[in-house]
């Protein structure tokens, strides 16, 4: 149980953290995930009390819990097979021990595969460009505001480019956030998004901006025309600034069901998605689909959104995530 012990150590280490800020961060993270965790863990615990011995009913209920977290039907089915295998091979009978195996295997899902860096790549010479993409209404614009706030606080010169020239009020929405976060702003309503992005990048270079955050219109991944438009935007960015966009973040709403996998696949095909931002974790949704996305599309989560304010962004940290989910259980 190497992985599990490692996890346990991580968890107990977290409790000893002295750094005030980090402690605060963990606390916020925990609060955001509290509902999630309570529900998930209380279910697992009930399961442990209800079933002291591993049985078919136990498996069934466990499957239920995992499905309810939106972890992804395929991922859950594979996970259950793996678990059944281990139970058989290691002759596991005790549900308390099995709980540890469960955490262990869940972690494996996320950690396995070539793990992409969860840090944001910075451009050494010139502006760092971060492109925000996703389906409608997931929180792209708000996440840009949150990132602008974060980098602004770090003393960086930030510029927001309104690449959503389609949705009513979108340019305005971003402009308001630019003001609130003291960022520069470039936008032009009603014109072609690729040309807005181009002009915005020219200005960003002129003004020696450190971080450029580009908003895009929400698009459903099965709309080929809109995906082509995104491809074009992406091309404009990469031809204008070498190595850009340094990051392309796919925003996923924590309430998203199985469709999240299709979203990740389709957007990855068109752009070089470097990570996921999982938003709205302050609600009751668990966002488990990111586990399936990691497994099937190998995209890591980089940030999570825990509210509507510009301060409600936290870096994603699988240890923290698991810690939040399983603290009471461990």
């Amino acid at each position, binding site marked *: 149980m190497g992985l599990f012990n490692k996890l346990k150590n991580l968890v107990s280490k977290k409790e000893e953290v002295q750094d005030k800020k980090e402690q605060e961060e963990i606390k916020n993270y925990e609060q955001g995930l509290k*509902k999630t965790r309570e529900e998930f863990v209380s279910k697992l615990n009930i399961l442990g009390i209800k079933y002291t011995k591993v049985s078919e009913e136990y498996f069934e209920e466990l499957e*239920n819990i995992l*499905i*309810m*977290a*939106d972890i992804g*039907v395929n991922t859950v*089915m594979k996970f259950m097979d793996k678990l059944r295998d281990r139970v058989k091979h290691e002759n596991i009978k005790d549900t308390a021990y099995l709980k540890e195996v469960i955490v262990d295997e869940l972690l494996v899902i996320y950690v396995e595969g070539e793990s992409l860096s969860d840090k944001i790549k910075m451009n050494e010479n010139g502006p760092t460009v971060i492109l925000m993409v996703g*389906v*409608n*209404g*997931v*929180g792209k614009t708000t996440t840009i505001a949150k990132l602008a706030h974060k980098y602004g606080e770090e003393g960086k010169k930030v510029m927001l480019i309104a690449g959503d020239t*389609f*949705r*009513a*009020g*979108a340019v*305005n*929405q971003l*402009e*308001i*956030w630019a003001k*609130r976060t003291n960022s520069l702003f470039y936008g032009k309503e009603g014109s072609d998004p690729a040309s807005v992005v181009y002009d915005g990048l020219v200005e960003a270079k002129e003004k020696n901006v450190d971080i450029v955050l580009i908003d895009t219109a929400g698009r*459903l*991944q*099965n*709309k*080929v*025309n809109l995906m082509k438009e995104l491809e074009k935007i992406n091309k404009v960015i990469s031809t204008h600034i070498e190595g850009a966009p340094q990051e392309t973040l796919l925003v996923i*709403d*924590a*309430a*998203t*069901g*199985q*469709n*999240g996998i*299709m979203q990740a696949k389709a957007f990855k095909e068109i752009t070089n998605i470097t990570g996921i931002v999982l938003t*709205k974790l*302050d*609600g*009751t*949704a*668990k966002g*488990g*689909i990111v586990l399936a996305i990691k497994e099937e599309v190998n995209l890591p989560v980089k940030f999570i959104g825990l509210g*509507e304010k510009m301060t409600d962004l936290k870096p994603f940290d699988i240890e923290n995530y698991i810690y939040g989910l399983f603290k009471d259980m461990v």
Partner: protein
Amino acid sequence: MFEYMGDRLSKAIKNIRGLGKITEDNINDAMKEIRLALLEADVNYMVVKEFVASVKEKALGMEVEKSLKPDEVFIKIVKDELVSLLGGDYVPLDTKENFEVIMLCGLQGSGKTTTAGKLANLLRKKYNRKPLLIAGDIYRPAAIKQLEDIATSLNIPVFKEDKKNVLEIVNDGISYAKDNNLDYVIVDTAGRLQIDEKLMEELKEIASNVKLNEIILVIDAMMGQDAINVITGFNDALNLTGCILTKMDGDTKGGVALSLRHLTNVPIKFVGDSEKMDGLSEFYPERMAERILDMGDILSIAEKVEGIVSEEEALEQAKKMKTGSFDLEDFLTTFKQIRKLGPLENIIKMLPQARSMGLNNISVDPKDMAHIEAIILSMTPYERRHPEVLKATRKQRIAKGSGRSVEEVNRLLKQFEMMKSMMKNISNGKMKMPF
């Protein structure tokens, strides 16, 4: 019937074929697949469980008449059960009174503001009403601007006020409507989490102080298992009168519809199926059931085709397809008819087997359609009737005439050949055609 179903599901169901009676043993695999299909469609876990149990009960012991195939009987049971669940207690949008107020609510990003615009548009167009939009989202940056822009594009009035109390804004808006001879008020509200007590209180206050004819939950069709918490949260607080399922033009199955109907009596009044202002369609339980089970939405196409293609035309073309004498001239005619149907991808998506042919995610650029037409129009009538004569020089001339490239001409000819052979298959009975 189940040629159109999801591959796995139809495979499992095939096993039932040729059996005289439905027994627990022979439907077990099929039940498992149905369970997975529903879970993959994001139907709530508990709902799936109950649904599967009830289908099983109905199917078991059901004597199959000699003339019927047991697999067909079985799938009918499944579909009927789905349809009755999705469709029961339907109440259409309230439009009977002289003055009505509707309030939209839902999570952040579910599509309330867009839906408000669509509803106003529909009420004016279909019911001849004079709508007023009230901007009740005073929190999200530029939310009011968004509603205003939508309203301007539709030429429908908006009421907004620089106040902190939404109830007051709504009341003032209603007075404004009455004073200005407007008779259907649509209240847009800010997105909120159902566990946000303060914001839920705001909605409750409106509901208890204003005579609302409809309280509608706007919910994203892509939602996963958490949908039940949202639905019950909003319904417990507000006694919803209906629900609108948005973003159904995506490739999500929308199993949330089933969860909603199973858990509450709240009817689904409309589905949102495009970002445009006319993208609000009535909800058809039959189609939803087929979508969830991955069956082609044949009914919808049939309906759309009606009224656009005259019967003689259709018969004439059907005959040509059968005999294989379908040429580019006919292609052009068909093409023009199809264009009248609206976005082609919506039609193709609904075709049976679109999925297994990899066509379910197809998207057709209206510009491409115009190009195809231009190419065919640049051919001589003889060439259209005999595409086999099209060699290099002719192709070059056509390309030049239509302002397209020779590759595009080639591509079109290839597509035409494919279509022709597809049609042969259809008329040979290998594939069924909806019209």
